[in-house]
Protein backbone atom coordinates (compact mmCIF):
# COMPACT_ATOMS: atom_id res chain seq x y z
CA UNK A 1 0.00 0.00 0.00
CA UNK A 2 2.83 2.36 0.85
CA UNK A 3 4.31 1.73 -2.56
CA UNK A 4 0.94 2.42 -4.17
CA UNK A 5 0.55 5.72 -2.33
CA UNK A 6 4.14 6.58 -3.20
CA UNK A 7 3.37 6.10 -6.87
CA UNK A 8 0.33 8.33 -6.66
CA UNK A 9 2.56 11.16 -5.44
CA UNK A 10 4.85 10.88 -8.44
CA UNK A 11 2.55 10.22 -11.35
CA UNK A 12 1.53 13.43 -13.14
CA UNK A 13 -1.69 14.63 -11.52
CA UNK A 14 -3.49 14.74 -14.85
CA UNK A 15 -3.12 10.96 -15.06
CA UNK A 16 -4.62 10.23 -11.64
CA UNK A 17 -7.59 8.37 -13.09
CA UNK A 18 -5.46 6.03 -15.20
CA UNK A 19 -3.01 5.45 -12.38
CA UNK A 20 -5.75 4.59 -9.92
CA UNK A 21 -7.43 2.14 -12.33
CA UNK A 22 -4.08 0.52 -12.93
CA UNK A 23 -3.43 0.14 -9.20
CA UNK A 24 -6.93 -1.21 -8.58
CA UNK A 25 -6.41 -3.88 -11.19
CA UNK A 26 -2.96 -4.79 -9.83
CA UNK A 27 -4.09 -4.82 -6.19
CA UNK A 28 -7.73 -5.92 -6.18
CA UNK A 29 -7.54 -6.91 -2.53
CA UNK A 30 -6.63 -3.38 -1.53
CA UNK A 31 -9.42 -1.70 -3.48
CA UNK A 32 -11.27 -0.45 -0.40
CA UNK A 33 -8.11 1.14 1.01
CA UNK A 34 -7.09 2.62 -2.31
CA UNK A 35 -10.49 4.13 -2.99
CA UNK A 36 -10.69 5.71 0.42
CA UNK A 37 -7.13 7.05 0.52
CA UNK A 38 -6.65 8.18 -3.04
CA UNK A 39 -8.76 11.05 -4.28
CA UNK A 40 -9.91 10.97 -7.85
CA UNK A 41 -11.25 13.78 -9.95
CA UNK A 42 -14.95 14.03 -9.27
CA UNK A 43 -17.65 12.78 -11.60
CA UNK A 44 -21.10 14.11 -12.01
CA UNK A 45 -24.56 12.69 -12.68
CA UNK A 46 -27.77 14.40 -13.64
CA UNK A 47 -30.79 14.30 -11.41
CA UNK A 48 -33.35 14.74 -14.19
CA UNK A 49 -36.28 15.00 -11.82
CA UNK A 50 -34.81 18.03 -10.09
CA UNK A 51 -33.08 19.41 -13.14
CA UNK A 52 -29.73 19.62 -11.41
CA UNK A 53 -26.45 17.77 -11.42
CA UNK A 54 -24.84 16.18 -8.42
CA UNK A 55 -21.36 14.97 -7.61
CA UNK A 56 -20.45 11.32 -7.19
CA UNK A 57 -18.15 10.09 -4.48
CA UNK A 58 -17.68 7.18 -2.11
CA UNK A 59 -19.86 8.91 0.48
CA UNK A 60 -23.09 8.88 -1.52
CA UNK A 61 -22.50 5.56 -3.20
CA UNK A 62 -24.07 2.21 -2.43
CA UNK A 63 -23.21 -0.67 -4.78
CA UNK A 64 -23.38 1.01 -8.20
CA UNK A 65 -25.94 3.66 -7.33
CA UNK A 66 -25.48 7.21 -6.12
CA UNK A 67 -27.80 9.27 -3.92
CA UNK A 68 -28.78 12.69 -5.18
CA UNK A 69 -28.70 15.43 -2.55
CA UNK A 70 -31.56 17.25 -4.31
CA UNK A 71 -34.12 14.42 -4.43
CA UNK A 72 -32.56 12.13 -1.82
CA UNK A 73 -33.05 9.24 -4.23
CA UNK A 74 -30.57 6.75 -5.60
CA UNK A 75 -29.64 6.74 -9.28
CA UNK A 76 -30.16 4.11 -10.63
CA UNK A 77 -32.89 3.27 -8.11
CA UNK A 78 -31.94 1.02 -5.22
CA UNK A 79 -34.14 -1.17 -3.06
CA UNK A 80 -32.70 -0.29 0.33
CA UNK A 81 -29.71 2.01 0.28
CA UNK A 82 -28.59 3.93 3.37
CA UNK A 83 -30.16 7.35 4.01
CA UNK A 84 -29.43 10.01 6.62
CA UNK A 85 -32.00 10.35 9.42
CA UNK A 86 -34.77 12.86 8.77
CA UNK A 87 -33.17 15.37 11.11
CA UNK A 88 -29.78 15.03 9.48
CA UNK A 89 -31.48 15.24 6.09
CA UNK A 90 -32.90 18.63 7.08
CA UNK A 91 -29.39 19.85 7.83
CA UNK A 92 -28.18 18.26 4.59
CA UNK A 93 -30.80 20.12 2.55
CA UNK A 94 -29.91 23.44 4.14
CA UNK A 95 -26.21 22.74 3.66
CA UNK A 96 -26.74 22.03 -0.03
CA UNK A 97 -28.65 25.26 -0.57
CA UNK A 98 -26.18 27.41 1.29
CA UNK A 99 -23.12 25.71 -0.16
CA UNK A 100 -24.51 26.24 -3.65
CA UNK A 101 -24.48 29.98 -3.01
CA UNK A 102 -20.94 29.81 -1.59
CA UNK A 103 -19.94 27.93 -4.69
CA UNK A 104 -21.43 30.56 -6.97
CA UNK A 105 -19.68 33.37 -5.09
CA UNK A 106 -16.21 31.85 -5.21
CA UNK A 107 -16.41 29.76 -8.33
CA UNK A 108 -18.79 31.72 -10.55
CA UNK A 109 -20.23 28.49 -11.87
CA UNK A 110 -19.38 24.98 -10.92
CA UNK A 111 -21.35 22.23 -9.23
CA UNK A 112 -21.61 21.54 -5.51
CA UNK A 113 -23.02 18.74 -3.37
CA UNK A 114 -23.15 17.99 0.33
CA UNK A 115 -23.69 14.56 1.86
CA UNK A 116 -24.15 13.72 5.52
CA UNK A 117 -24.42 10.53 7.46
CA UNK A 118 -24.45 9.45 11.09
CA UNK A 119 -21.36 7.81 12.47
CA UNK A 120 -20.95 5.40 15.38
CA UNK A 121 -19.82 8.05 17.88
CA UNK A 122 -23.14 9.93 18.16
CA UNK A 123 -21.75 12.52 15.85
CA UNK A 124 -21.97 12.76 12.12
CA UNK A 125 -19.81 13.21 9.04
CA UNK A 126 -20.42 15.73 6.31
CA UNK A 127 -18.81 15.82 2.93
CA UNK A 128 -18.81 19.06 0.91
CA UNK A 129 -17.80 18.73 -2.74
CA UNK A 130 -17.18 21.22 -5.50
CA UNK A 131 -16.39 20.61 -9.13
CA UNK A 132 -15.48 23.49 -11.39
CA UNK A 133 -14.69 23.40 -15.08
CA UNK A 134 -12.87 26.64 -15.76
CA UNK A 135 -12.04 26.06 -19.38
CA UNK A 136 -13.12 28.42 -22.15
CA UNK A 137 -15.80 25.95 -23.16
CA UNK A 138 -16.93 25.44 -19.56
CA UNK A 139 -17.48 28.08 -16.94
CA UNK A 140 -14.27 30.02 -17.43
CA UNK A 141 -15.57 33.58 -17.42
CA UNK A 142 -12.41 35.14 -18.73
CA UNK A 143 -11.56 32.58 -21.37
CA UNK A 144 -7.91 32.10 -20.47
CA UNK A 145 -7.89 28.42 -19.97
CA UNK A 146 -7.81 25.80 -22.66
CA UNK A 147 -8.49 23.32 -19.95
CA UNK A 148 -9.09 23.95 -16.28
CA UNK A 149 -10.44 21.71 -13.58
CA UNK A 150 -10.79 22.25 -9.85
CA UNK A 151 -12.12 19.48 -7.61
CA UNK A 152 -12.48 20.12 -3.90
CA UNK A 153 -13.40 17.50 -1.34
CA UNK A 154 -14.00 18.55 2.25
CA UNK A 155 -14.80 15.89 4.82
CA UNK A 156 -15.82 17.11 8.27
CA UNK A 157 -16.12 14.73 11.18
CA UNK A 158 -18.33 16.31 13.81
CA UNK A 159 -18.13 14.91 17.32
CA UNK A 160 -21.03 14.77 19.80
CA UNK A 161 -22.13 17.85 21.73
CA UNK A 162 -20.10 18.07 24.94
CA UNK A 163 -21.19 20.93 27.19
CA UNK A 164 -22.13 23.08 24.26
CA UNK A 165 -19.03 22.46 22.19
CA UNK A 166 -18.28 19.94 19.53
CA UNK A 167 -15.03 18.88 17.95
CA UNK A 168 -14.74 19.41 14.21
CA UNK A 169 -12.08 17.63 12.18
CA UNK A 170 -11.84 18.83 8.60
CA UNK A 171 -9.78 17.11 5.90
CA UNK A 172 -9.66 19.06 2.67
CA UNK A 173 -8.28 17.91 -0.66
CA UNK A 174 -7.94 20.09 -3.70
CA UNK A 175 -7.08 18.69 -7.11
CA UNK A 176 -6.54 21.03 -9.96
CA UNK A 177 -5.28 21.22 -13.48
CA UNK A 178 -4.92 24.22 -15.73
CA UNK A 179 -3.70 24.44 -19.29
CA UNK A 180 -3.16 27.47 -21.46
CA UNK A 181 -2.39 27.05 -25.08
CA UNK A 182 -1.42 29.63 -27.61
CA UNK A 183 0.67 30.16 -30.72
CA UNK A 184 3.44 32.16 -29.21
CA UNK A 185 4.11 30.19 -26.07
CA UNK A 186 2.98 26.64 -26.77
CA UNK A 187 1.15 24.63 -24.16
CA UNK A 188 1.57 25.30 -20.44
CA UNK A 189 0.04 22.88 -17.97
CA UNK A 190 0.16 23.04 -14.20
CA UNK A 191 -1.63 20.38 -12.23
CA UNK A 192 -1.56 19.11 -8.73
CA UNK A 193 -3.24 17.89 -5.62
CA UNK A 194 -2.77 18.75 -1.97
CA UNK A 195 -4.53 17.76 1.19
CA UNK A 196 -4.60 19.39 4.63
CA UNK A 197 -6.35 18.94 7.93
CA UNK A 198 -7.80 21.38 10.43
CA UNK A 199 -9.18 20.67 13.89
CA UNK A 200 -11.34 23.00 15.96
CA UNK A 201 -13.60 22.95 19.00
CA UNK A 202 -16.53 25.29 18.44
CA UNK A 203 -19.75 26.24 20.18
CA UNK A 204 -22.69 24.23 18.87
CA UNK A 205 -24.99 27.20 19.44
CA UNK A 206 -23.49 28.94 16.38
CA UNK A 207 -24.88 26.15 14.27
CA UNK A 208 -23.06 23.23 12.69
CA UNK A 209 -23.41 24.66 9.23
CA UNK A 210 -21.82 27.96 10.17
CA UNK A 211 -18.99 26.23 12.04
CA UNK A 212 -18.24 23.83 9.21
CA UNK A 213 -18.70 26.49 6.57
CA UNK A 214 -16.22 28.89 8.11
CA UNK A 215 -13.62 26.16 8.51
CA UNK A 216 -14.04 25.09 4.92
CA UNK A 217 -13.81 28.63 3.63
CA UNK A 218 -10.64 29.25 5.61
CA UNK A 219 -8.92 26.03 4.64
CA UNK A 220 -9.94 26.30 1.00
CA UNK A 221 -8.48 29.79 0.88
CA UNK A 222 -5.26 28.55 2.45
CA UNK A 223 -5.02 25.70 -0.03
CA UNK A 224 -5.61 28.02 -2.95
CA UNK A 225 -2.91 30.40 -1.77
CA UNK A 226 -0.56 27.57 -1.00
CA UNK A 227 -1.02 26.10 -4.45
CA UNK A 228 -0.48 29.44 -6.08
CA UNK A 229 2.45 30.74 -4.10
CA UNK A 230 4.25 27.74 -2.71
CA UNK A 231 3.58 24.91 -5.09
CA UNK A 232 3.37 26.69 -8.40
CA UNK A 233 6.05 29.05 -7.14
CA UNK A 234 8.44 26.16 -6.55
CA UNK A 235 8.00 24.87 -10.06
CA UNK A 236 8.67 28.36 -11.41
CA UNK A 237 11.78 28.56 -9.23
CA UNK A 238 12.93 25.27 -10.69
CA UNK A 239 12.53 26.55 -14.24
CA UNK A 240 14.53 29.66 -13.44
CA UNK A 241 17.20 27.52 -11.81
CA UNK A 242 17.49 25.36 -14.93
CA UNK A 243 17.79 28.36 -17.20
CA UNK A 244 18.12 31.68 -15.39
CA UNK A 245 16.60 34.73 -17.03
CA UNK A 246 19.13 36.88 -18.87
CA UNK A 247 19.24 39.64 -16.24
CA UNK A 248 20.26 37.15 -13.56
CA UNK A 249 22.95 35.71 -15.77
CA UNK A 250 24.59 39.05 -16.26
CA UNK A 251 24.62 39.60 -12.53
CA UNK A 252 25.98 36.21 -11.68
CA UNK A 253 28.61 35.72 -14.32
CA UNK A 254 29.99 39.15 -15.11
CA UNK A 255 33.39 37.69 -16.00
CA UNK A 256 31.89 35.77 -18.89
CA UNK A 257 31.82 38.96 -20.88
CA UNK A 258 35.58 39.05 -20.91
CA UNK A 259 36.17 35.46 -21.96
Amino acid at each position, binding site marked *: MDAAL*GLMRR*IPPKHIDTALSALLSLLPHHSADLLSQVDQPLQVLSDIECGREFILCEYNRDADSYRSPWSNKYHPPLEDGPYPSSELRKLEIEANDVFAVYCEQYYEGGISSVYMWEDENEGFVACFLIKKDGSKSGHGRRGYLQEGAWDAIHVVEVGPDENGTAHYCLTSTVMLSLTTNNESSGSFNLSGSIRRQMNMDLAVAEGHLQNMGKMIEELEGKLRNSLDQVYFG*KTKEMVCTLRPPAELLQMRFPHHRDV
Partner: protein
Amino acid sequence: MADEEESELSVEQKIEIAKWFLLNSPPGEIQYVAKDVKAILKDDYVYETAASEAFSIYNKSHLLCLPMPNNSGDVLITAFNEIDANDYLDPITAQVAKVDHVKQVCTEVRRANDEELPFPYVEEYRCAVDAEVSKYVGEAYPKGVCSVFCTSGKDVEEPGSDFELVVVISAARHSPQNFCNGSWRSVWNIELKEDLQIVEIKGRLQVGAHYFEEGNVQLDAKHECKDSTIIQAADDCAISLTNIIRHHETEYLTSLQASYSNLPDTTFKDLRRKLPVTRTLFPWHNTVQFSLTRDLAEELGIGKQTNQ
Protein backbone atom coordinates in the same frame (compact mmCIF):
# COMPACT_ATOMS: atom_id res chain seq x y z
CA MET B 1 -15.69 -1.87 -9.52
CA ALA B 2 -14.96 -2.58 -5.89
CA ASP B 3 -15.90 -6.23 -6.28
CA GLU B 4 -13.16 -8.84 -6.47
CA GLU B 5 -12.03 -9.17 -10.06
CA GLU B 6 -13.22 -12.25 -11.90
CA SER B 7 -9.79 -13.15 -13.21
CA GLU B 8 -6.22 -12.08 -12.54
CA LEU B 9 -4.60 -9.75 -15.03
CA SER B 10 -2.60 -11.48 -17.74
CA VAL B 11 1.18 -11.23 -17.68
CA GLU B 12 1.12 -8.99 -20.76
CA GLN B 13 -1.35 -6.64 -19.10
CA LYS B 14 0.79 -6.40 -15.97
CA ILE B 15 3.84 -5.66 -18.06
CA GLU B 16 1.99 -2.88 -19.90
CA ILE B 17 0.84 -1.32 -16.63
CA ALA B 18 4.36 -1.49 -15.15
CA LYS B 19 5.75 0.13 -18.30
CA TRP B 20 3.15 2.89 -18.13
CA PHE B 21 4.15 3.81 -14.57
CA LEU B 22 7.84 3.80 -15.44
CA LEU B 23 7.40 5.86 -18.59
CA ASN B 24 5.32 8.48 -16.78
CA SER B 25 7.87 9.07 -14.03
CA PRO B 26 8.79 12.71 -13.56
CA PRO B 27 12.37 13.74 -14.44
CA GLY B 28 14.92 12.06 -12.21
CA GLU B 29 12.40 9.87 -10.44
CA ILE B 30 12.28 6.69 -12.44
CA GLN B 31 14.37 4.77 -9.91
CA TYR B 32 11.95 5.67 -7.11
CA VAL B 33 8.98 4.72 -9.25
CA ALA B 34 10.73 1.49 -10.17
CA LYS B 35 11.12 0.56 -6.51
CA ASP B 36 7.42 1.12 -5.86
CA VAL B 37 6.36 -0.75 -8.98
CA LYS B 38 8.57 -3.68 -8.06
CA ALA B 39 7.05 -3.80 -4.57
CA ILE B 40 3.51 -3.82 -5.94
CA LEU B 41 4.10 -6.41 -8.65
CA LYS B 42 5.98 -8.92 -6.48
CA ASP B 43 6.90 -10.61 -9.75
CA ASP B 44 10.49 -10.29 -10.93
CA TYR B 45 9.83 -11.54 -14.44
CA VAL B 46 7.10 -8.99 -15.10
CA TYR B 47 9.15 -6.19 -13.57
CA GLU B 48 12.33 -7.00 -15.45
CA THR B 49 10.57 -7.33 -18.78
CA ALA B 50 8.75 -4.04 -18.29
CA ALA B 51 11.90 -2.31 -17.03
CA SER B 52 14.10 -3.39 -19.91
CA GLU B 53 11.65 -1.87 -22.39
CA ALA B 54 10.56 1.18 -20.42
CA PHE B 55 13.94 2.40 -19.18
CA SER B 56 15.36 2.58 -22.66
CA ILE B 57 12.46 4.69 -23.94
CA TYR B 58 12.49 6.89 -20.83
CA ASN B 59 16.24 7.52 -20.98
CA LYS B 60 16.12 8.55 -24.62
CA SER B 61 13.09 10.77 -24.26
CA HIS B 62 14.57 12.46 -21.18
CA LEU B 63 17.92 12.97 -22.95
CA LEU B 64 19.78 11.27 -20.14
CA CYS B 65 23.37 12.39 -19.68
CA LEU B 66 25.88 9.82 -18.47
CA PRO B 67 29.58 10.17 -17.67
CA MET B 68 31.84 7.91 -19.72
CA PRO B 69 34.07 5.59 -17.68
CA ASN B 70 37.42 6.84 -18.94
CA ASN B 71 36.89 10.43 -17.79
CA SER B 72 36.59 11.58 -21.37
CA GLY B 73 33.38 13.47 -20.75
CA ASP B 74 29.67 12.83 -20.92
CA VAL B 75 27.48 11.14 -23.48
CA LEU B 76 23.86 12.02 -24.16
CA ILE B 77 21.43 9.15 -24.64
CA THR B 78 18.99 10.01 -27.40
CA ALA B 79 17.26 8.49 -30.37
CA PHE B 80 19.50 10.51 -32.69
CA ASN B 81 22.84 9.02 -31.73
CA GLU B 82 21.69 5.48 -31.13
CA ILE B 83 23.88 3.00 -32.95
CA ASP B 84 21.89 0.11 -31.54
CA ALA B 85 19.84 -0.65 -28.44
CA ASN B 86 22.64 -0.14 -25.94
CA ASP B 87 25.29 1.77 -27.91
CA TYR B 88 25.38 5.54 -28.27
CA LEU B 89 27.75 7.68 -30.27
CA ASP B 90 29.56 10.64 -28.75
CA PRO B 91 30.68 12.68 -31.75
CA ILE B 92 33.03 14.98 -29.88
CA THR B 93 35.35 12.27 -28.62
CA ALA B 94 34.44 9.93 -31.50
CA GLN B 95 33.59 7.13 -29.13
CA VAL B 96 30.70 4.75 -28.78
CA ALA B 97 29.41 4.22 -25.26
CA LYS B 98 27.78 1.03 -24.07
CA VAL B 99 24.93 1.70 -21.67
CA ASP B 100 22.93 -0.27 -19.12
CA HIS B 101 19.53 1.40 -19.39
CA VAL B 102 18.02 0.01 -16.23
CA LYS B 103 20.97 0.90 -14.04
CA GLN B 104 21.35 4.18 -15.95
CA VAL B 105 25.12 3.88 -16.23
CA CYS B 106 27.66 3.79 -19.01
CA THR B 107 29.57 0.54 -18.71
CA GLU B 108 32.30 0.89 -21.35
CA VAL B 109 33.47 2.88 -24.34
CA ARG B 110 35.24 2.06 -27.58
CA ARG B 111 36.53 4.10 -30.48
CA ALA B 112 33.90 4.81 -33.16
CA ASN B 113 34.34 3.21 -36.55
CA ASP B 114 34.65 5.36 -39.63
CA GLU B 115 31.23 4.23 -40.89
CA GLU B 116 29.66 5.52 -37.70
CA LEU B 117 31.07 9.02 -38.06
CA PRO B 118 30.04 11.69 -40.57
CA PHE B 119 32.29 12.52 -43.53
CA PRO B 120 34.56 15.54 -43.12
CA TYR B 121 32.34 17.95 -45.10
CA VAL B 122 29.39 17.36 -42.79
CA GLU B 123 31.62 17.00 -39.76
CA GLU B 124 32.96 20.50 -40.35
CA TYR B 125 29.44 21.90 -39.94
CA ARG B 126 28.58 19.57 -37.09
CA CYS B 127 31.70 20.50 -35.21
CA ALA B 128 31.26 24.25 -35.75
CA VAL B 129 27.66 24.16 -34.56
CA ASP B 130 28.70 22.02 -31.61
CA ALA B 131 31.34 24.53 -30.55
CA GLU B 132 29.01 27.54 -30.82
CA VAL B 133 26.10 25.83 -29.09
CA SER B 134 28.37 24.60 -26.30
CA LYS B 135 29.44 28.17 -25.65
CA TYR B 136 25.80 29.26 -25.53
CA VAL B 137 24.76 26.41 -23.27
CA GLY B 138 27.67 27.11 -20.95
CA GLU B 139 26.46 30.67 -20.55
CA ALA B 140 22.74 30.12 -20.40
CA TYR B 141 22.40 26.92 -18.42
CA PRO B 142 24.17 26.45 -15.09
CA LYS B 143 24.04 22.70 -15.52
CA GLY B 144 23.27 22.14 -19.16
CA VAL B 145 24.68 19.54 -21.50
CA CYS B 146 24.50 19.60 -25.27
CA SER B 147 25.47 17.63 -28.29
CA VAL B 148 25.07 17.91 -32.02
CA PHE B 149 24.45 14.83 -34.11
CA CYS B 150 24.18 14.20 -37.80
CA THR B 151 20.87 12.51 -38.47
CA SER B 152 20.86 12.32 -42.22
CA GLY B 153 23.33 12.57 -45.05
CA LYS B 154 26.44 11.86 -43.05
CA ASP B 155 28.06 10.45 -46.13
CA VAL B 156 27.80 13.71 -48.02
CA GLU B 157 31.27 14.52 -49.31
CA GLU B 158 30.90 17.95 -50.77
CA PRO B 159 28.43 20.78 -51.31
CA GLY B 160 25.50 19.73 -53.46
CA SER B 161 23.50 17.48 -51.20
CA ASP B 162 21.25 18.08 -48.26
CA PHE B 163 22.04 16.89 -44.80
CA GLU B 164 20.49 17.19 -41.38
CA LEU B 165 21.85 17.89 -37.97
CA VAL B 166 20.14 17.85 -34.64
CA VAL B 167 21.11 19.93 -31.63
CA VAL B 168 20.15 18.43 -28.31
CA ILE B 169 20.23 20.47 -25.11
CA SER B 170 19.43 18.87 -21.80
CA ALA B 171 19.45 20.44 -18.34
CA ALA B 172 18.20 18.60 -15.30
CA ARG B 173 18.11 19.42 -11.64
CA HIS B 174 17.32 16.76 -9.08
CA SER B 175 16.79 17.75 -5.45
CA PRO B 176 14.84 14.88 -3.95
CA GLN B 177 15.80 16.07 -0.47
CA ASN B 178 13.92 19.29 -1.24
CA PHE B 179 11.11 17.34 -2.86
CA CYS B 180 11.76 19.06 -6.16
CA ASN B 181 12.95 17.87 -9.59
CA GLY B 182 12.96 19.47 -12.98
CA SER B 183 14.24 19.26 -16.52
CA TRP B 184 14.62 21.39 -19.63
CA ARG B 185 14.92 19.61 -22.95
CA SER B 186 15.47 21.28 -26.32
CA VAL B 187 15.73 19.45 -29.60
CA TRP B 188 16.55 21.53 -32.67
CA ASN B 189 16.37 19.86 -36.07
CA ILE B 190 18.50 21.56 -38.68
CA GLU B 191 18.00 20.88 -42.36
CA LEU B 192 20.49 22.17 -44.83
CA LYS B 193 18.75 22.56 -48.18
CA GLU B 194 21.32 22.98 -50.91
CA ASP B 195 18.92 23.72 -53.77
CA LEU B 196 17.19 26.51 -51.88
CA GLN B 197 20.45 27.63 -50.26
CA ILE B 198 18.73 27.90 -46.93
CA VAL B 199 18.98 26.21 -43.58
CA GLU B 200 15.70 25.45 -41.86
CA ILE B 201 15.64 24.98 -38.16
CA LYS B 202 12.78 23.59 -36.08
CA GLY B 203 12.80 23.53 -32.31
CA ARG B 204 10.87 21.49 -29.78
CA LEU B 205 11.23 22.67 -26.22
CA GLN B 206 9.91 20.81 -23.22
CA VAL B 207 10.11 21.92 -19.61
CA GLY B 208 8.98 19.90 -16.62
CA ALA B 209 9.06 20.38 -12.86
CA HIS B 210 7.73 18.37 -9.94
CA TYR B 211 7.29 19.58 -6.37
CA PHE B 212 6.02 17.02 -3.94
CA GLU B 213 6.40 18.08 -0.32
CA GLU B 214 3.05 17.07 1.20
CA GLY B 215 1.41 17.24 -2.15
CA ASN B 216 2.03 16.56 -5.82
CA VAL B 217 2.26 19.46 -8.26
CA GLN B 218 3.76 19.26 -11.75
CA LEU B 219 4.52 21.62 -14.56
CA ASP B 220 4.44 20.32 -18.11
CA ALA B 221 5.16 22.92 -20.76
CA LYS B 222 5.92 22.44 -24.45
CA HIS B 223 6.65 24.71 -27.33
CA GLU B 224 7.46 24.37 -31.00
CA CYS B 225 8.99 26.97 -33.22
CA LYS B 226 10.80 27.34 -36.50
CA ASP B 227 13.09 29.70 -38.29
CA SER B 228 15.53 29.77 -41.18
CA THR B 229 18.73 31.36 -42.37
CA ILE B 230 20.90 31.29 -45.49
CA ILE B 231 23.62 28.74 -46.05
CA GLN B 232 27.07 30.09 -45.30
CA ALA B 233 30.46 28.66 -44.46
CA ALA B 234 30.43 26.31 -41.49
CA ASP B 235 31.58 28.81 -38.85
CA ASP B 236 29.21 31.58 -39.91
CA CYS B 237 26.33 29.14 -40.15
CA ALA B 238 27.08 27.94 -36.66
CA ILE B 239 26.94 31.47 -35.31
CA SER B 240 23.62 32.24 -37.09
CA LEU B 241 22.01 29.05 -35.93
CA THR B 242 23.14 29.49 -32.36
CA ASN B 243 21.77 33.02 -32.35
CA ILE B 244 18.44 31.71 -33.56
CA ILE B 245 18.39 29.09 -30.85
CA ARG B 246 19.38 31.56 -28.18
CA HIS B 247 16.71 34.01 -29.32
CA HIS B 248 13.85 31.51 -29.33
CA GLU B 249 14.83 29.89 -26.06
CA THR B 250 15.16 33.19 -24.29
CA GLU B 251 11.78 34.27 -25.62
CA TYR B 252 10.27 31.03 -24.47
CA LEU B 253 11.61 31.45 -20.96
CA THR B 254 10.11 34.94 -20.90
CA SER B 255 6.73 33.62 -21.97
CA LEU B 256 6.90 30.93 -19.29
CA GLN B 257 7.53 33.61 -16.70
CA ALA B 258 4.60 35.59 -18.09
CA SER B 259 2.33 32.55 -17.80
CA TYR B 260 3.33 32.25 -14.16
CA SER B 261 2.73 35.91 -13.39
CA ASN B 262 -0.69 35.77 -15.00
CA LEU B 263 -1.73 32.99 -12.69
CA PRO B 264 -2.87 34.78 -9.57
CA ASP B 265 -5.04 37.39 -11.24
CA THR B 266 -6.27 35.79 -14.40
CA THR B 267 -5.93 32.10 -15.10
CA PHE B 268 -6.28 30.91 -11.52
CA LYS B 269 -9.25 33.21 -11.04
CA ASP B 270 -11.10 31.27 -13.72
CA LEU B 271 -10.97 28.32 -11.38
CA ARG B 272 -11.55 29.92 -7.99
CA ARG B 273 -11.55 33.53 -6.92
CA LYS B 274 -9.54 34.62 -3.89
CA LEU B 275 -12.63 36.32 -2.49
CA PRO B 276 -16.22 36.78 -3.70
CA VAL B 277 -17.06 39.86 -5.74
CA THR B 278 -18.30 41.43 -2.50
CA ARG B 279 -14.68 41.35 -1.29
CA THR B 280 -15.82 39.96 2.04
CA LEU B 281 -15.91 36.47 3.39
CA PHE B 282 -19.06 34.46 2.91
CA PRO B 283 -21.81 35.41 5.39
CA TRP B 284 -22.38 32.01 6.94
CA HIS B 285 -24.37 33.50 9.83
CA ASN B 286 -27.00 34.73 7.41
CA THR B 287 -27.61 31.29 6.02
CA VAL B 288 -31.13 31.04 7.28
CA GLN B 289 -32.15 33.68 4.79
CA PHE B 290 -30.61 31.73 1.92
CA SER B 291 -32.56 28.61 2.47
CA LEU B 292 -35.79 30.48 3.03
CA THR B 293 -35.75 32.80 0.12
CA ARG B 294 -34.32 33.01 -3.36
CA ASP B 295 -34.54 36.81 -3.35
CA LEU B 296 -31.26 37.13 -1.53
CA ALA B 297 -29.60 35.09 -4.24
CA GLU B 298 -30.86 37.53 -6.83
CA GLU B 299 -29.77 40.41 -4.66
CA LEU B 300 -26.24 39.07 -4.76
CA GLY B 301 -26.55 39.02 -8.52
CA ILE B 302 -26.20 35.32 -9.18
CA GLY B 303 -29.58 34.37 -10.56
CA LYS B 304 -30.99 30.89 -10.87
CA GLN B 305 -28.79 27.95 -9.95
CA THR B 306 -28.80 25.92 -13.12
CA ASN B 307 -25.21 24.64 -13.13
CA GLN B 308 -25.24 24.10 -16.86
